[in-house]
């Protein structure tokens, strides 16, 4: 029973996260009769580029973290080499897939230009995500601290 309650809570939280984009889609369909503004080919290109770039950059970050993992385990070489190859795989997959033609090329003329654009784009997106997370967490914290302090007697009386 307790497990079911927890599952419902998690579902509610996930649904709350998805609520704003779902509301926009619902309003679009209600007002315009269709879901407009989305170009599926371009969206797929952006999704694929973001996936490849996020994988490669995140792998590079985790590769750096493995040094600290190694420090506590007599610096084993095997996981470091494994993660290095995983990162190289990401770079090679990015270069190979972008080089396949116009599928993953946005408004850039070459593989190098697209790869650099992807990295800069990722920095800007990460910046926006960072500011949004800071705002959401900060406002939650300020909403909590703006309330009157609770005393232990209140809790005991319940």
């Amino acid at each position, binding site marked *: 029973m307790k497990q079911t309650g927890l599952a419902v809570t998690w579902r509610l939280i996930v649904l709350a996260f998805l609520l704003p984009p779902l509301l926009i889609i619902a309003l679009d369909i209600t007002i315009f009769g269709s879901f407009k*503004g989305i170009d599926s080919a371009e969206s797929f290109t952006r999704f694929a580029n*973001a996936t490849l770039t996020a994988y490669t950059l*995140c792998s590079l970050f985790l590769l750096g973290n493995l040094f600290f993992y190694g420090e506590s385990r007599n610096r084993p070489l095997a996981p470091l080499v494994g993660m290095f190859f995983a990162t190289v795989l990401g770079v090679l997959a990015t270069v190979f897939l972008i080089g396949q033609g116009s599928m993953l090329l946005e408004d850039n003329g070459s593989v190098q230009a697209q790869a650099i654009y992807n990295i800069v784009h990722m920095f800007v997106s990460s*910046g926006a*995500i960072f500011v*949004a997370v800071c705002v959401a967490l*900060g406002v939650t914290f300020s909403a909590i601290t703006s309330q009157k302090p609770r005393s232990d007697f209140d809790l005991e009386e319940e």
Partner: protein
Amino acid sequence: MNIQALVKSMDEVFKAFLLFWIPVAMVPLGLWYSMSSSNKSTTTNGRFLAFLGLILICASPWTVPSSPSSAAGHLLGAIIGPCMLVLLGIYLISFSGNVPVGKLPRSDRKLGVFMAGSGFVWLAGMHWWVLTPQLAPDEVNPYWFVFWPTFLLLTSCLASCSAVTLLTIGDRRRAESNAMFLVSAVSLIVLLLGLNVDGPLVTGEQFRHHLWLAVADMAGIVVGSLLSILVFALVIYSYERSLPPPKTISPPSDSELDQVSALIESHLGGEEE
């Protein structure tokens, strides 16, 4: 082959590397350096390195105007002011409330509300007023179309998520939850206004187009990051599995067990008060 054009192009690539990419690398390196040691001079040097990197990135539209990447530096310079206002404002509001440590004077609350509000109005002015980041007259910085919809949509989603979390997991947090629903609703209303009300340089159609690209972008970042974490876990798991099992010690003998029992027995009990 036009050797002069190649040399010129190499020169521009080198300039971009020196004046944009090295400063970009200086920011995380400086932060890592400042956090890796408790030594005060190391911390100061690291912070200075990160700050210098930020300044050089913001200056990149002037130092390497030929590089398309410098548009990101231009955007950083344009949004750093309002974003700092919003974040500092929220910090002042939070720590002028009921916090056990680091409490700020109550008067800082009004200043915080003013700062956060003016920062948000400044950002909105970049969409609907003359403050839009422009690389040239009437040429909107392309990265502004990445930042603004991503920020608005994610703020709305996270605030809504936080509101429901406070309601379902929190204890008597209805007032806080309502505040978070309000933040989510305000972000969503600004988003809907962006979809339907044109600014002087940004039309609703453009915003709509870039909003769904931002959704695709965020989904891609989540999938890519999860994939790399999965690969990381697999690498660690396969390494740990390849290790020989740790040496096991023999179970305690009867005499050792007796000794332990006697020791425990001598510590049990006690006098009634």
